[in-house]
């Protein structure tokens, strides 16, 4: 049995331990006039303990609340409110991580830059609400065709940038062609006489160590070629 002077690793004593000690003291020191004082102190100790537990519980709950809010804010910072896709900031973060992985593990990754053809004309002829709906429907089509670990973002305006980890040239090209064809099937939601949706795609297969901005520039350069060569087509970066 430990004495009150024992250096205890636990600061807090359970109610049952206190009750046992009190019972023992009451037995061993029956009739001692200090007994009521000791009992009173023990009660105060228990109250203090309960108060401490309560403060801790409320504090933990509030801390959890702050963490949840941070998560929501973090989501908002990296997502595009219209399409629900990741935004540019979010993709850059993932792309940086992928570039670092390539440097470490030499796993190539693909970048797919997709741009909606004649988007300005759609906005001008049908209004911005139709343009917005086209963006939403293109985003939904992207979602349907991607692998679980692909990352896709609205890069800005009518441009989407997709990051495809661990991929080779042939599957990258196949995926891009499949996406391009899938866009032909897009029916713009809730719009009569909706314009056809066509997209141009630029691809870059990154297999050497380079920085994120440089890899995006190369995908963009391929997209430029696709636009120049007549739109509604896929081009892969071949060097300048």
């Amino acid at each position: 049995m430990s004495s009150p002077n024992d250096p205890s690793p636990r600061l807090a004593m359970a109610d049952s331990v206190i009750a046992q000690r009190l019972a023992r003291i009451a037995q061993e020191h029956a009739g001692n006039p200090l007994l009521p004082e000791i009992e009173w102190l023990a009660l105060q100790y228990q109250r203090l303990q309960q108060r401490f537990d309560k403060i801790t519980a409320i504090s933990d709950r509030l801390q959890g609340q702050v963490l949840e809010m941070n998560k929501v804010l973090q989501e908002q910072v990296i997502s595009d409110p219209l399409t629900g896709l990741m935004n540019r900031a979010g993709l850059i973060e993932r792309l940086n991580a992928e570039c670092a992985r390539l440097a470490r593990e030499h796993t190539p990754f693909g970048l797919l830059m997709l741009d909606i053809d004649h988007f300005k004309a759609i906005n001008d002829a049908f209004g911005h609400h139709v343009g917005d709906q086209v963006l939403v429907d293109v985003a939904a089509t992207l979602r349907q065709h991607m692998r679980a670990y692909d990352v896709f973002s609205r890069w800005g305006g009518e441009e989407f940038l997709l990051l495809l980890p661990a991929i080779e040239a042939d599957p990258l090209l196949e995926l891009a062609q499949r996406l391009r064809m899938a866009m032909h099937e897009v029916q713009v939601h809730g719009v009569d006489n909706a314009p056809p949706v066509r997209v141009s795609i630029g691809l870059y297969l990154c297999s050497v160590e380079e920085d994120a901005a440089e890899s995006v520039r190369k995908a963009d350069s391929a997209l430029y070629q696709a636009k120049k060569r007549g739109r509604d087509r896929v081009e892969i970066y071949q060097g300048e």
Partner: protein
Amino acid sequence: MQYYEKAASVSTPWVRLDPELGRIDLVGESYPANSFEFYQPIVEWLSAYLALDSVHPVHVELELSYVNTGSIKSMLDLFDLLEQAHQDGRAVAVVWKYDSRNQRALETAEEFSEDVSFPFKTLDTFVP
């Protein structure tokens, strides 16, 4: 009794202690660097108010979106004083305002009200 009012800061709530109305208001966030220093005048004010007589009611309105651990402790100290006053027969009421968009806010309020027997009302301030 002195009327006491303190403007809100980034880390402390707006405080108003009105002896005429027998009313305490705290509105804002509460995570002062030294919560004891911040809450001491409020605890002292309430003790003095309660010592004046035993009849005047106390009405407390709290709208605190975030409270740190030190503030929770001070808040419970205030509630102890209010509970004692209530046990002694005084009319005591607390209104706890919260924003229901914050899913855990009501649970926090309930945790605060668990050990008190005076009227403790929760009020959702969010207007959809």
